[in-house]
């Protein structure tokens, strides 16, 4: 019973360094456990070193060429644009929660934000940033 009481009372206890003692123990245990397991498996595990193991894994097919090839900038451009519009959508979540409280002022503020984004979107489309074929 004492055990469970100890666990239950954690939240009501005063905020001193002693209260963090269990967390400290847990941290030490976690780090120690991982270190021990990795160490032991490296020590007593079987080792067969072959040249195949040093090759990069490509689903069982023999690896071809070098991974460090020049890539079309288009991929990068699309990735960056994706991040941009992804972040835009994130801003809608806090707005959706505060929709009623912010009223018309908030609506116009968000409208301005979205229209600026839309201006940028029209700009990149017209400039051909999303045109895939050359």
């Amino acid at each position, binding site marked *: 019973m004492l055990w469970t009481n100890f666990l239950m009372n954690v939240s009501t206890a005063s905020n001193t360094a002693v209260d963090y003692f269990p967390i400290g123990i847990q941290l030490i245990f976690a780090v120690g456990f991982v270190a021990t397991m990795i160490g032991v498996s490296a020590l007593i595990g079987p080792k067969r070193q072959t040249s195949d193991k040093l090759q990069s894994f490509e689903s069982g097919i023999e690896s071809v060429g070098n991974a460090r090839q020049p890539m079309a900038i288009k991929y990068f451009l699309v990735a960056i644009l994706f991040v941009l519009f992804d972040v835009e959508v994130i801003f809608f979540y806090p707005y959706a929660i505060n929709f009623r409280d912010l009223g018309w002022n908030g609506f116009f503020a968000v409208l301005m934000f979205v229209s*600026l984004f839309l*201006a*940028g979107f*029209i*700009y990149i489309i*017209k*400039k051909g940033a999303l045109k895939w074929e050359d």
Partner: protein
Amino acid sequence: MNAIIVSAVFGVLMMFASFLVNNKNVYRYLAIIGLSVLLLANILETYAIWSIKFDSFLQLSFERFGLFFNSIAIAATLFYVLLSGKDIVRVGNYSAEYFVLIFFILCGVSLITSYNSLLMLFLGIEIISIPLYILTGSDKKNLKSNEAALKYFLMGAFSTGLMLMGIALSYGAVGNFGLEGRGVVAFGGSMRVSFLEVAGLLLLFISMSFKASAAPFHFWTPDVYEGAPSVFTSFMATIVKATVFIGMIKLLEARTGIFGPTWQIILPLMIVLTLAIGNITAVFQQSVKRMLAYSSIAQAGFMLFALWSANDMGREGILLYSVAYTLATVGIFAVLVKMKDYTFDGFNGLAAKQPLVAASVAVFVLSLAGIPLTAGFFAKYFMLASAIKSGAGVWLLVVAVVFAAVSVYYYFRLIQAMYFKEGEAEMFEQPTNSFKGMLAIFAVLLIVLGIAPSLLFNYLYF
């Protein structure tokens, strides 16, 4: 608020113009119209006739000094586009976008002159910096331009990190982002300024001196200024640099005495170091462009005096200094862009071929050196006089004057090359009459302000 909103709107309009209009000359005229409207809108706000009002929740505060500096910056940009607009269009394939970025930089400028919270300062500095990174690398096929842009970006991003760290520490001490805040802690029975706040403001100050290229944070300047296309070098060495000083003045005024007595050692040390490094290294340069980069470091040393004196005369002085320095530097760069050879020898014999251009450049150079009857003289005079008013040691002024004398050497080499040496000063194209006319207007403005600097201050107070 007018300048912030109108400049952003014109930036977006120019973006649309880039795909709606195909004629490259139209961009230039659009930019000129936009800058004129922007200037008008800002003046209307200065005299409280008409302004767009938003509740900024105490993040921004508009006062006469900042608004007047906005007018100076916008007018200087207008003159700059009138003078070298054709060269801006010619830098690369994205002519309209260069003007877009210039408009966005002006938006950042007007944020920095009116911030009332450290967050807005950060936003302003970033809105200024990011377009500058792009403009630096806008000459895409030139390796030097690419190198300069990458260098500028990496070092600028690092200094931005320092600035954020500083703002965070200051927030930790004060409890809000307000400009006026003051963190106080109990220390051995007495109340002292919080250590966190001092450390934070020091980091903030370091990162802003980086943007203003004051020694010992100037290392990026020569390479970036040399690598960037000359038209954009002239923009970032003048208008942007002056703006950063306005931001620093606002910051240090709001928190005077935060650094305590050590400030009397730190700042004079920085001033002397900046003057020494800028001037002495400029003496050894063979390229006029690189010389101007070092000279811009040296001029930053003089502008630092306004931070030290922190009085009304210093505030007037920094306005006059930005006008004098901007007009002269933009003028010289506009001529430099047209030269085939950027070394001093490239200017040999310019006076015989282009008397009016050479005479204007001579006036610009005299103004930069601070010779009487040009605006540069009164600019330097105001800086030193304001420092005396705040009780600067005489040794500091002697050092400043000695370095001003050193600067005469490398500035006058340009005059010597143009007037007293034989040579074929080759240009890419013959300057048009309107270009010569604009140069002459710049020179006349510098001389008029050199005779009656109060003409400028009248607008600050009336």
